[in-house]
């Protein structure tokens, strides 16, 4: 299988402080790669670097096209949807407006309408709250909205930053079930950052463990899961 996303020697810095020191990351077409590591390892920064939200170095390509020198909004338009930590929904706008904005980069109006209905099928709770302000939703609903908004782009690759963060266990199970479905049924590839390694490794076919901006280990998810040393050192379970 060809990779849909490939980064080589990815570096990133916040001002003078370098956070990523040359990472190689791959997401297979239709695959799910989990990005694991302790707090402060640079997982979120990887996603930000891929979307050009921080100054980055190294090479990154998406479906064979270089992402170097592209602005965030252009990368998004290629079909990469990023669900940032803190969710990045528009709290002052309604659920419906958030969904419309998710499809902002698209021109096919009829298909957008159909997708809106489809996405609301995934998240019936959102459908009930379409006219409600996003900021008034519960944490789980906001996470659903963030994912729904990202799906409205009809992305080929979904970048997910801690989708389980701050959610009740039931809501987490819900969201991961939907992610699995989206990956299997719609063929959306995913790069997923997660604190909860068990969850992420269940969903992923591939895993990267990073430690302070360097790759500690990468390989098939099953291999990473079964590696006792890695598990104890980086995944703390």
């Amino acid at each position, binding site marked *: 299988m060809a990779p849909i996303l490939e980064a080589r020697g990815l570096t990133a810095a916040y001002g003078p402080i370098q956070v990523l020191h040359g990472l190689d990351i791959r997401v297979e077409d239709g695959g799910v790669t989990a990005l694991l590591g302790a707090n402060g390892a640079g997982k979120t920064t990887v996603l930000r670097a891929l979307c050009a939200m921080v100054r980055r170095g190294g090479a990154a390509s998406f479906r064979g096209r270089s992402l170097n020198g592209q602005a965030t909004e252009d990368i998004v338009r290629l079909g990469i949807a990023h669900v940032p930590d803190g969710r*990045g929904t528009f709290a002052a706008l309604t659920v419906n407006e958030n969904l419309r904005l998710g499809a902002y980069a698209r021109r096919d109006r009829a298909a957008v309408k159909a997708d809106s209905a489809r996405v609301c099928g995934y998240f019936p709770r959102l459908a009930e709250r379409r006219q409600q302000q996003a900021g008034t939703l519960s944490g789980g609903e906001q996470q659903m909205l963030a994912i729904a908004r990202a799906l409205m782009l009809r992305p080929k690759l979904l970048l997910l930053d801690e989708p389980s963060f701050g959610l009740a266990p039931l809501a987490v199970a819900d969201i991961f079930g939907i992610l699995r479905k989206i990956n299997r049924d719609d063929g959306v590839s995913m790069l997923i950052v997660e604190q909860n390694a068990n969850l992420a490794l269940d969903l992923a076919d591939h895993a990267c463990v990073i430690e302070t901006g360097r790759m500690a280990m990468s390989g098939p998810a099953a291999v990473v899961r079964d590696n006792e040393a890695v598990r104890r050192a980086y995944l703390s379970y």
Partner: protein
Amino acid sequence: MVAFLHQVFSGLAMGAVYASLALALVVIYQATHHVNFAQGEMAMFSTYIAWDLIDRGVPYWEAFLLTIAISFLIGMVIERVVIRPFERAPALTVVIVFIGLLVIFNSLAGWRYSYTIKSFESPFPDEPWFGNSFMSSHESGTVVVTLAMLALVYIFFRFTKLGLAMRAAALNPTSSRLVGIRVGWMLAIGWGLAAAIGAIAGMMAAPIVYLDPNMMGGILLFSLAGALLGGIDNPWGAVLGGFIVGVLENVAGAYLVGTEIKLSVALIIIVGVLVAKPSGLFGRRIAARV
């Protein structure tokens, strides 16, 4: 009583002008958190463009629409060329840039059109409309034009994709980029929109206050008072504030302070709002975590 009502109604006309300019201020404030002190002078310059067009024989309403379009473009170009380089500059730097723009437009108008006061024609007939004895037809017309403009602006922001994207870009630039919105262009369009709204305010004000390069100084101050009174982060509050200030100004000018120091009414409102209720009547109070 009749005289009082007369003051109230003719206050509505200037109130409409303040409301428009206040809305222009809010459009830029929401996106950048800066008050564009050059908004008044930009509107004044737009009015000169309209005067120029009419002077060349263009019929009024065509000149009116053309001026709006030209002003929109000028606003966009100013954002792209002058404001953009200061995107991340400290607030004080941006204020200086605005004051620079103010001086430039003022001098440009004086140089191109001279500082002598010109009269500016009203598109409305001389007789009052529908036997309304409280307002001249230009005053009623100003209110009507302003309300029509407000309706269009509302429809644009509420129901169009671009309007939604502009609101999103103002609310949350980072998330906006993540859905593919070109935030820089949204800012430029915001500037264009503000300039176009200002142009309408200028063209409606000019028959009342006459056309000269300094015509907008006082008007901007009253508009700012209106925007602050209504809440500078709430467009409809700012519009309402503009109307309130227009009426207050007229009534206070007639009964309290006299026309000579009317402008101090604006200052009293500004200081009063900032002291008593900084978020304005309809603004949101923002609590920041430190």
